[in-house]
């Protein structure tokens, strides 16, 4: 049994907003194994981006532990973390905002190597450029001279410069046209195999998640409501939220008739935390049981669901 590359244990993150406390992440626990691509999905406000930022220590967790490659990095000093950053990198969401407008592609790509003392020669840059299907000519350009898709490739190249073992991808295709997404996803898959990387893929776009990831974690209001292998969760979603989420996605095929599960109302704010299931105000099958903390039910093969309906013999 291989050891996990990343262990997240009971992660909590709270933000203060004036008088209120925003409970962005409320007790998230999971593991990621080497070579996997794990998707972290949910809508806005579910906490997925905050989880990623805590893992990369761009935020400091309020509670809980982050263990990367058997090393507890939760409390490490910024200096020590900086040295470790060559092993875990991030591809950011907005290619227009995540590249320094005053730096050429060459500078942006050399920097990670220089910072970690890994810079040897120009060949490293050339290799990276070719890996992401860009041209050598692009090295001397500034971001504003590149298209959206090209900029995102630069962002990907930057993340893989130090050959990290772990890469977090934060909605890398959300700001791109649909026809570009397939290319970026195909690129990411190829890179993962070529460079033996492990991915954590954050997205609200379940279609791209389905084509890239091996396992998926579904988040709602700061908690994981369902997790498991892609095929299990997508073909047999057991949490009402997952079912609603999947059924909301329009399918580009008029022959497919949708059985839409509509939840009442909208996602509540993360300010007042009620005990029990986060979906209690919106779920069509809510009962008293749901007002208490909900345990995970194991459906086998790593498919776990925090919903009473997943219990064997549960009544709607």
């Amino acid at each position, binding site marked *: 049994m291989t050891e996990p590359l990343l262990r997240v244990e009971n992660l909590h993150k709270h933000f203060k907003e004036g008088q209120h406390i925003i409970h962005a992440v409320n007790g998230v626990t999971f593991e990621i194994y080497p070579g996997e691509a794990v998707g972290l999905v949910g*809508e*806005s406000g579910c906490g997925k981006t905050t989880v990623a930022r805590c893992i990369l220590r761009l935020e400091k967790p309020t509670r809980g532990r982050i263990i990367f490659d058997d090393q507890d990095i939760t409390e490490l000093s910024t200096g020590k973390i900086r040295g470790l950053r060559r092993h875990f990198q991030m591809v950011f969401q907005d290619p227009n905002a995540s590249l320094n407008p005053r730096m050429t592609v060459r500078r942006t790509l050399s920097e990670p190597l220089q910072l970690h003392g890994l810079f040897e020669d120009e060949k490293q840059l050339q290799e990276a450029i070719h890996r992401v299907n860009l041209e050598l000519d692009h090295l001397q350009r500034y971001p504003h001279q590149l*298209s*959206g*898709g090209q900029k995102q490739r630069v962002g990907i190249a930057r993340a893989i410069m130090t050959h990290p073992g772990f890469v977090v991808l934060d909605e890398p295709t959300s700001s791109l*046209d*649909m*026809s*570009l*997404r*397939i*290319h970026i*996803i*195909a690129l990411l*898959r190829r890179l993962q195999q070529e460079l033996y990387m492990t991915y954590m893929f954050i997205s*609200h776009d*379940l*279609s*791209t998640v*389905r*084509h890239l990831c091996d396992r998926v974690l579904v988040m709602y209001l700061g908690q994981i409501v369902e997790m498991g292998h*892609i*095929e299990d969760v*997508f073909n047999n979603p057991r949490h009402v939220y997952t079912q*609603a*989420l*999947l*059924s*909301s*996605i*329009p*399918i*580009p*095929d*008029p*022959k*497919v008739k*949708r059985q*839409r599960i*509509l*939840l*009442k*109302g*909208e*996602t509540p704010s993360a300010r007042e935390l009620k005990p029990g299931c986060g979906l209690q105000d919106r779920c069509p099958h809510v009962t008293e049981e749901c007002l208490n903390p909900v345990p995970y039910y194991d459906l086998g093969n790593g498919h776990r669901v925090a919903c009473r309906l997943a219990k064997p013999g549960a009544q709607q």
Partner: protein
Amino acid sequence: MAESLLRVEELSLAFPHEEATRRVLDQVSFDLYPNEVLGLVGESGSGKTMTSLTIIGLLPSTAQVLGGHVWFDGRDLLALSDREMRAVRGAQIAMIFQNPLSALNPLQRAGDQVARAVRIHRQLPKDEAYDTAVALLRQVGIPDAASRARAYPHQLSGGMAQRVLVAMMLACQPALLIADEPTTGLDVTVQAQIFELIKDIQADTGATVLLITHDLGVVSEVCHRVAVMYAGQIMERAPVEALFERPQHPYTERLLSSILRVDQPKELDTTQALLPISLDYDTPGCRFANQCPNVLAICREQRPAPHTTAQGHTVFCHKYTDEAP
């Protein structure tokens, strides 16, 4: 053949670009019939938003209309003065945009804004207008409408704000509703709700909708007919089932192959996908020629004439018009 409510005829539009001008719309033509939802589909640079802005008369001052007509209610909207166009806007043609929160007045309560639209377009006195406004908010699915009417826009979520805008539109009772990417940026579950709402309203009031989107899933669910645009040109127009089952234009075929579907497992085939190359706005011919798998010499020289392959299915492609070699 029913009389069309809106007819866009050979519309061409240019913008100053760097040192020259760029033809962002090239002889765009389509009809919109009463009581239907027509989807105008395309990716960035396709010109779909420019088309809608031209129809409603909200183009920036630097835009140059090079030719064509927009026939609505017996008149060419492009020939109307600003004053005449203002009378049409809101009352006969209404539009909702993406980013609903920026379309609402941040200093006025939601209910008051809807009530104002009611007062202006239905000429009702203040109290009656406000009651009508609350009823409209209820109609668009806002829970607790009476108290939500007293909220300011910043207190509303994106989904709520978009519903308020739909309510304002209903207040105007326009003949034509243009919705430009109304759910971009909204959560997917909220998106589903908004589109259910649009479908319900369309069914109840018989409104005619021009829906602008890049999402083919949305088109499949909400639209009756579709017009596909690429780099400012119309490529294909068809009823929705026909477009997905028997796409005629190579661009449409490639577009459909490029989409990742959530209901299909992991096969990734980029060989049939669109190429991420830059758009060619300068060619006198078909703008898809640079990556078309069926390209002919004539494609780069001449814009293809429309060719109707089946009932209501028209394609702009030399593959069909030049049948005889």
